């Protein structure tokens, strides 16, 4: 039978031609809701002068702060920030491995209890904002960089566990089958096939997560969890903009250096 326009359902054509209009209405609705709902407080009068002073501070940074031997200067606090990020990422990478095996879905059953529960736990960990974790750990161990380390290491489990479990799901199973067919037991399969296959990818994700941890370690200090964030928030509150300028420069240089180092290492790995 020949298909003609007559026996084709017309509403379908109509829908095809005009459904973009529906999207326009939806998008317009979302934006009018978004703009209408926010009451813009208006820009305070000092905005212009404050931004001018910030710019001036950025152009004339307080160079004396870079190193003054007190242990509270920029270079030692940058080092402390890096130490928080490093220790936090290292601990979380170790803890993430069992979580990854828990959450990885290795067969195609539609409802997988073990993997499903692991994924829910990882999502729950991810939703806890890092600064809330930092404040909770400050309760436990007092203000300082140790609380920052704990916050970074717990928060990172959420993301590293997810990435690790996804790479376990997608890994090449050839080596595992080879060991199994040669009569290897489970622990031999794990140590001789699974872990060596997955190791470079785990390291690569850990490095990537370290880049993120450096950024978060530099702001955790704003709530009192150590690192460069503490003097930064003080400098902003006391409006000493040349101090803000030098700290911003320090953070920018630190992040750029770590990013390029980690990128180079990751390229070598894969």
């Amino acid at each position: 039978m020949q298909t003609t326009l007559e026996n084709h359902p017309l509403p379908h054509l109509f829908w095809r031609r005009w459904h973009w209009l529906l999207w326009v209405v939806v998008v317009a609705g979302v934006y009018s809701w978004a703009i209408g709902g926010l009451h813009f407080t208006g820009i305070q009068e000092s905005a212009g002068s404050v931004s001018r002073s910030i710019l001036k501070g950025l152009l004339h940074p307080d160079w004396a702060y870079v190193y003054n031997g007190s242990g509270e200067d920029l270079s030692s606090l940058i080092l402390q920030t890096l130490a928080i990020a490093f220790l936090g990422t290292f601990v979380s990478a170790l803890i993430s491995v069992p979580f990854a095996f828990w959450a990885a879905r290795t067969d195609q059953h539609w409802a997988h209890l073990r993997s499903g529960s692991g994924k829910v736990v990882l999502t729950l960990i991810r939703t806890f904002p890092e600064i809330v974790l930092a404040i909770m750990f400050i309760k436990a161990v007092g203000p300082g960089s140790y609380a920052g380390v704990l916050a970074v290491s717990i928060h990172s489990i959420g993301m590293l566990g997810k990435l690790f479990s996804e790479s376990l799901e997608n890994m090449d199973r050839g080596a595992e089958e080879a060991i199994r067919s040669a009569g290897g037991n489970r622990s031999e399969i794990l140590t001789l096939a699974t872990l060596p296959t997955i190791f470079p990818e785990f390291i690569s994700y850990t490095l990537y997560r370290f880049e993120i941890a450096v950024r978060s370690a530099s702001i955790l200090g704003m709530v009192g969890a150590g690192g460069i964030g503490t003097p930064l928030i003080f400098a902003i509150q006391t409006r000493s903009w040349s101090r803000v300028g030098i700290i911003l420069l320090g953070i920018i240089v630190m992040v750029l250096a770590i990013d390029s180092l980690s990128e180079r290492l990751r390229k070598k790995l894969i």
Partner: protein
Amino acid sequence: MTESTPALPQRPWRQRYHVAAIGWTLLLAVLLVLSSLMTGANFGTFLSNIDQFLALLVQMSHPAWSYLHVILQPLYETIQMAVLGTTIGAVLAVPFALLAASNLVGNRLLRGLIRFFLDLVRTLPDLLLAAIFVAIFGIGSTAGVITLAIFSFGMVSKLFYEVIETIDMGPLEALKSVGATKVTIIWYAVLPQILNQFVSYFLYTLEINVRASTVLGYLGAGGIGVYLQRSLGEFNYSATAVIILATLVVVLVIDGISNHLRRVLL
């Protein structure tokens, strides 16, 4: 005539003694010791104060659901901030992405400068931007929207120019050969090829921004974070738990919508 047997291939001493592996392990060990000294990390301190931490967790496990009606309005505000901030950032990112794409801009210096600028913007964490914009614009959602705009600008522009670099150059050459201007080429040859992926990345950034916007208020930049800070300041952890759970629901809903739309688009 003696034929010497070929020597067995020898592993170089660097491989035989696992120099690289031992070196990396030593380096990691040294860095670990140094950083735990520097941060004063001590598992004993954590264990000796674990009862306080557990008490806090117990309080959190009894969410005060009556607090929910207080935080509904700020939750909406958070989503609104994320939508506006992401949009402003994405719109600003388009011209920068076009200028940073290596297949559209031949001038290496200009491209390098633009990319360096984008790299600089991406180094700044969201909360740090929020602290600065609260100082400039005052407490409220204006600072939050601008923070999210700058934050998503840095992220989206990189995603966008990487997409632009993968497009098919055929339509561009066709238009160029009939004498079209740059603007015409971009409008008729570049944009149609990348529009779907742009929208997809826009939605992905929106997901991230919804997560980010929930804490911006902690520094006074509007949204649910204001209440997060208030409840933590008052040691009202059962209210904190409600805020975190409500945020989780919002994030999951937005993620679900955005994932569905992205699957339809691509």
